[in-house]
């Protein structure tokens, strides 16, 4: 299965109906699918932290929110994830393109790429890395169920090998 379609189907299975996003080249197709979906309110934002705020407001208004971003954006969001989502117990599905690890051609991605799992661990945000498109749909749906039941964000990390998988 196409990796972008698998993630999208996981979002649909989870009932995600609000998505904030900052683009990554690997999210291009997924963002296109989300933007075309009349059941998902898609809000491109200027910075990932702003997306955390929008998604928190959307949750309080009855939506099921997801934030789509590159892992560089995790660094831009840490205070908001902690002092908004974790403080108040707000669920959020984080769909993260995980750059800077095996196969990364761009050196600037490497420091944040290596640190990403550790940063999520430090915040006690559970994260899952589906190895292939075949597993992604269920992983994404599961991550949302976990976010909702634990009243906090949960993350799906999608690395370069994932995007190359079929």
């Amino acid at each position: 299965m196409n990796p972008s379609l698998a993630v999208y189907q996981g979002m649909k299975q989870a009932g995600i109906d609000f998505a904030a996003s900052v683009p990554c080249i690997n999210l291009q197709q997924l963002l296109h699918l989300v933007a075309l979906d009349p059941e998902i309110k898609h809000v491109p934002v200027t910075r990932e932290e702003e997306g955390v705020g929008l998604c928190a407001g959307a949750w309080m208004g009855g939506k099921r929110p997801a934030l789509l971003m590159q892992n560089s954006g995790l660094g831009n969001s840490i205070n908001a994830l902690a002092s908004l989502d974790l403080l108040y117990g707000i669920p959020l599905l984080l769909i993260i393109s995980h750059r800077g690890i095996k196969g990364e051609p761009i050196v600037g991605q490497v420091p944040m790429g290596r640190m990403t799992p550790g940063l999520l661990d430090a915040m006690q945000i559970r994260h899952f890395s589906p190895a292939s498109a075949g597993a992604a749909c269920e992983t994404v749906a599961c991550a949302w169920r976990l976010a909702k039941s634990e009243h906090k964000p949960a993350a799906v990390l999608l690395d370069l090998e994932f995007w190359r998988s079929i």
Partner: protein
Amino acid sequence: MKRFEAIALAAEVAEERHALLISNIGFPSRELYAQKDRPQNFYMLGSMGLASSIGLGLALAKPRQNVMVLDGDGSVLMNLGTLATLAAYNPENYLLVILDNCCYGSTGSEPTCTSLGTDLAGMARAAGVRIVSVVSDAVGLHNALLGRGLVLAKVEPGNADVPIIDLTPHEIIERFMKCALEAEPS
């Protein structure tokens, strides 16, 4: 106009308009809580800069529910992208009130760039926000609070002598969401 008075007026109009009210971290939330606590108030205890974004997400999720945000100059300067996103979506049910006291009022009144002439109303217009007003007295503020878009209210520096909020984050969000979700359907 003192910020304390501006917040009292905003709280009164929010109640009249059945608006959900998001209030900024620090003294603004404390001043609101001390004067007019309502379950429809969301007191943002952390995440400086994001009051406007939380309100915008809520307004987009509940298009028939009025949403009002009490923000500050220092906080908006921290999240200027919010002006562009607001301009892009421009919901009819959203009003961003920037209480501009030209300083970081909750940390010791250190000056912000608005004290040196940075014009947040001009920046909002340049970002594409269509309805922007600037007010400096209670009559002007009252009129602006009945509208939508963005209002920049010039207020004096200084905080009222009010205690910290004795609600837990869980209590704040639980009662707020009860109101938000019981209100008119999205």
